[in-house]
């Protein structure tokens, strides 16, 4: 009987690192619930962290700010960092070669840059679909 009690304690220790068991964020405290995402989807971008590529992209498009990219964040898919590509309607995983900073603002800027490059690439999965189904 005593052995069984020890096992229970071990299981509790393992679950400490999981989301929902960690310290709550300010937003989680406010709403009184655990946020399912492991990143803040409402985080406003820090423009001091803009990458040179993103500056060039904004200038090229004639916009005043990040525009649609304000809503792009570095997320996770199957325990790997990933960016959601709304055009392909799927998560695109980040290659292991790319080392990511700990700060979410920096990670988000990298996510934005990678997503633009991916979407504008002639190797994007939608290019094949467009070639096949383009009507006009």
């Amino acid at each position: 009987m005593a052995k069984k009690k020890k096992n229970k304690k071990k299981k509790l220790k393992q679950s400490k690192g999981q989301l929902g068991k960690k310290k709550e964020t300010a937003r989680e405290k406010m709403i009184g619930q655990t946020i399912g995402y492991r990143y803040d989807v409402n985080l406003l971008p820090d423009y001091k962290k803009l990458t040179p590529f993103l500056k060039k992209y904004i200038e090229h498009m004639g916009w005043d700010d990040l525009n649609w990219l304000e809503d792009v964040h570095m997320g996770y898919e199957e325990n790997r960092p990933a960016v959601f590509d709304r055009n392909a309607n799927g998560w695109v995983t980040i290659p292991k070669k790319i080392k990511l900073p700990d700060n979410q603002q920096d990670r988000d800027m990298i996510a934005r840059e990678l997503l633009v490059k991916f979407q504008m690439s002639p190797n994007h999965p939608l290019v094949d679909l467009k070639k096949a189904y383009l009507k006009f």
Partner: protein
Amino acid sequence: MANLKTSAKKTKAQSMGMHTEVLTGKTQQKFFNPDEAENFFYWGTHDVDFNKRTELDVKDMDCKMANDKIDRLMSEGYGTIVIKNPQGKHSLGVGILNKLNLIFEGSLGYFGVGSIDGPIVKVNGRVGWSCAENMMAGKVIVEKNAGSCFGAAIRGGDLICKGSVGARTGIDQKGGSIIVGGDAGAFTGFMMQRGRIVVLGDVGINLGDSMYDGTIYVGGKIGSFGSDAVEAPMEKNDIDWLNRKLSVAEIGNNFDVSKMTKVVAGKKLWNYDALEPTEKKGAI
């Protein structure tokens, strides 16, 4: 009787194997090639020059003809197109997927500039129902009033109306910003899932009804809150963002954004425990 099996012509999609491919889920393990970094427009769209300007009179054209003509002008490299006499025609300027300065000298009908991804559009008049529906990116400025469902299902970009808008503004919004200089009707932010709505004037009843996420800022009076919409404290980040966005929108000079009401979802509709179990796995 004809043998349908042998007489059916193989489409291009079938010959590419798209009807027989094995679907393995949403995750794409391959990523981009860094050498392709400097490309700023989608495959199959046009890289236009903002300094190349032209005018297009659409008085005697239907919407399909007008949209075809706009596409042809973009393919010739025109980056600034002024549309004369839009006369409230429906579905003008839809589906533009590259950068462009598009100026309408007049008003638009229903579903104007829908599904756009990138252009900067200026409408020197009013717009009808569902302006910029499904907008993906870019900036749209409407100088006067807008009808119902302004920015329905918008996914990104800045949608600005300097006047007042009708009911269900930002219905099913999934991203981007909707900024209204005047008042907004009932059910503003209905079922919104992400993004931000800013209304400098008053809003009607059922604000943010059944909203799942996102933020609504209101400068005037609120008719009533909808289901699961709750007030939240304004933070410094909100104030900074509002000041910056209002200057981008070219409205609200000297407007004290710190006195606005911030509305968010109460999260009673959230069911992530059941829907997204993989999201809850350990941090990386």
